[in-house]
């Protein structure tokens, strides 16, 4: 450690002032503050600061995603190598998943660096999270060049053109996924998506919506039972299949208070209420739409709902930023997700679009919460 510190101190002059590589100071700063806590001192009151910083917050979000990632690797391997031992399944998942993560971080990191150098600001830790979120919402069969393209789109259009982390309107990882969804729909939906080495299988959502005139549960039949879907032994995007692994991450985010419980609770509540409503409605009109009959607990474990609820909806920057706004924002996501799943015949997955939709409305919710707050203040003062 002493050696590292000395090395960094030795090369520092190259990156500051008139140094040879002064342009690349953000790179030095990143390495320096990655390895050692920064030297910045307080300049005025308060003269002391909390030990937490954004590096820690962001890396904790990544930690929260680890159970989902590890299970994702295992699950991919399970589909490639269905009869292997558990550890072998895990190992055979690695060659598929690791390159996707690598591409996401390399391409995203590249853009982060370019923008940091041009804008002369530090490299923001926000990308630690985006770089992990992108692979986790990709199907394992995604070509790497598409990952590179999607990451580029997500980081540049989804975040950097707004001014970087903290200024973006939409969740960059979802922008990346939406890009693939609209640009290369064949790669992310359709019934042959989850093909790995010749084995193809429909996702539960696709299965449940596959035939008009039946009910979703009948269509799922014996192929997918609830517990399998809860544990995650189903095809799907890398990180989204295991609701259990995602809930472990959720618990971590809630205990550390990094993830907002109001958003999570709002989303869950919105989903449950809307699912109940569609169930009742489906019965009442004797609908032939199978998805209208999917019970709430199935919505929870199918597709990207749980993953989106825990890791995407809670992105503090693109979510609503007032407590009441967070409830409304969450409720809207849960509502929209079920509606899209049930009513939209072309595409059975609703979580991505519903979160992006709610992202767009989040500032409006905050605006109304703020107006309400102002009105209450005036009322209190009038009394």
């Amino acid at each position, binding site marked *: 450690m002493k050696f590292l510190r000395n090395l960094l101190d030795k090369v520092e002059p190259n990156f500051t002032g008139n140094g040879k590589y002064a342009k690349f100071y953000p790179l030095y700063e990143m390495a320096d503050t990655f390895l*050692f806590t920064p030297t910045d001192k307080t300049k005025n009151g308060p003269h002391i600061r909390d030990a937490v910083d954004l590096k*820690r917050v962001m890396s904790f979000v990544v930690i929260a995603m680890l159970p989902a990632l590890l299970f994702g690797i295992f699950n991919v391997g399970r589909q490639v190598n269905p009869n292997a031992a558990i550890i072998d399944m895990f190992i055979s998942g690695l060659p598929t998943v690791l390159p996707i993560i690598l591409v996401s971080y390399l391409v995203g990191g590249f853009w982060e660096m370019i923008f940091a150098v041009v804008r002369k600001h530090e490299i923001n830790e926000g990308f630690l999270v985006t770089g992990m979120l992108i692979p986790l919402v990709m199907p394992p069969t995604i070509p790497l060049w598409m990952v590179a393209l999607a990451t580029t789109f997500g980081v540049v259009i989804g975040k950097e053109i707004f001014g970087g982390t903290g200024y973006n309107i939409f969740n960059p990882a979802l922008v990346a996924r939406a890009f693939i969804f609209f640009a290369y729909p064949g790669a992310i939906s359709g019934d042959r998506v989850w093909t790995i080495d010749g084995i193809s299988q429909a996702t539960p959502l696709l299965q449940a919506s596959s035939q008009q005139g039946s009910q979703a549960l009948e269509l799922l039949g014996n192929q997918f039972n609830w517990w399998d879907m809860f544990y995650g032994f189903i095809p799907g995007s890398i990180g989204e299949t295991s609701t259990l692994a995602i809930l472990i991450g959720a618990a971590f985010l809630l205990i550390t208070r990094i993830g907002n419980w109001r958003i999570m609770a709002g989303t869950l509540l919105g989903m449950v209420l809307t699912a109940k409503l569609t169930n009742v409605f489906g019965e009442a009109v004797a609908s032939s739409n199978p998805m209208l009959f999917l019970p709430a607990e199935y919505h929870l474990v199918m597709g990207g709902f749980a993953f989106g609820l825990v890791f995407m909806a809670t992105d503090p920057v693109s979510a609503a930023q007032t407590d009441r706004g967070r409830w409304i924002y969450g409720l809207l996501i849960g509502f929209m997700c079920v509606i899209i799943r049930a009513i939209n015949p072309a595409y059975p997955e609703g979580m991505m679009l519903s979160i992006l939709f709610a992202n767009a409305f989040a500032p409006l919710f905050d605006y109304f919460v703020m107006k309400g707050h102002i009105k209450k203040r005036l009322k209190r003062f009038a009394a």
Partner: protein
Amino acid sequence: MNIRIKKGHDLKLAGKPAKTMETIDVGSFIKLHPSDFPGVKPKLLVKIGDTLKKGQAVFTDKNNIDVLFTTPAAGSVEDIQFGERRRIESITIRVAENDKVVSFEPYSLEQISTLDSGKVTEILCKSGLWPSLRRRPFSKIAIPNTFPKSIFISTMSTAPFAADLEVVLEQTKKEIIQAGIDVLKFLTNGSINMVSPQNLSNTKLTDLNNVQQHTYTGPHPAGNIGVHVSQIDPIKNKEDSIWYISIQDLISIGELFLTGKVDYRKIITVAGSAISEKQHYSVNRGTLISQILSNNKVEDNARIISGDILTGSISYMDNSIGFYHESITVIPNVPNRVFMGWIAPGFSKYSLSNTFLSKLLPKREKVFTTSMNGSKRAILPIGAIEKVMPLNILPTMLIKSIIANDIETMEQLGIYECDPEDFTLCSFSDASKMDITGIIQDGLDFAEAEG
């Protein structure tokens, strides 16, 4: 009424002051810093070499020529230091061993009640005690001959290392406090409010006349004037005005009217983890910090703060203690660079977040350095600052409106109720390391100029 707040935090810091008290001599030099008074444009009334009586005016405010700033000791003007654009930085006075003093007519308690607001204002201005009355919004010196809707007296701060009320009141008399209150009575048409900690009852503060007694409970900033005002008599707009004063300054005013002499002594605490003798001291105003700490051992590489650790300003040995400050805090000024600190388990880290294992251990008093513990980043609203904001304010929205210079929204969100000191814990706990107190000050400056 009892003001009970839940949002806030009492920092557990190493270096608490003992309840003992020692008296410090005035020393051979004292200094006055016009920068202690925000918004004051100083106009000198003395030149180098002038001999001064104790209590003689040294400078005045160009905007308010009635308000005089007086020397807390007799002597001669030794030096006047100017900074950029000939701004007066300090006035050094060589203390003389004589008893020449500016004195006023003494009154009995009964006689005080026969005075009027004009007379009271005149005496306070001439004595140099007027600046101890400040106004909200803006926390600047009260404007003579205007009338606030109420006046607040704060008895004890909840900021770290605040002077203990028992120690402060030990050598004073109830009559003096009553005299101070009776004098303030002339300065407002509304009420005078005294707010004390609920768990502390002192007979010198009970059964006082002309004052409404309130109590507070809860963590810091429960003792802040801003919190009390927002509960008792909130500031509704820019034209609204309340005044406030600390109990020590109130005692000085009472003393002045009862004896005709100004007592320039006040009780301060010296505290923090980088100093040896942590206790209360009775000092003369204007006393140099080097004199106050002369029997004290300050560690190398320490930061000396005039005031408390949350709101005070960086100071130096050859400065005097700030006019409004009641503490000198000394903490280590060396950031220790922790290897991979962002992922370390952090058994010994102090954080209001739940991201360190120290959260599971019993809270111990912690040595803080001046390290930012991270780099500055854009706003990441995870709700941490809302947890320590007891005012009825939406802090994230307010901060955004200030950054956007959106004066209308700022006003609607209650900028005039705010003071930077109410936001110090927000600055403390923010993971993005934003200078939230600075932003609030910018907002107030902008609103005062443009609103």
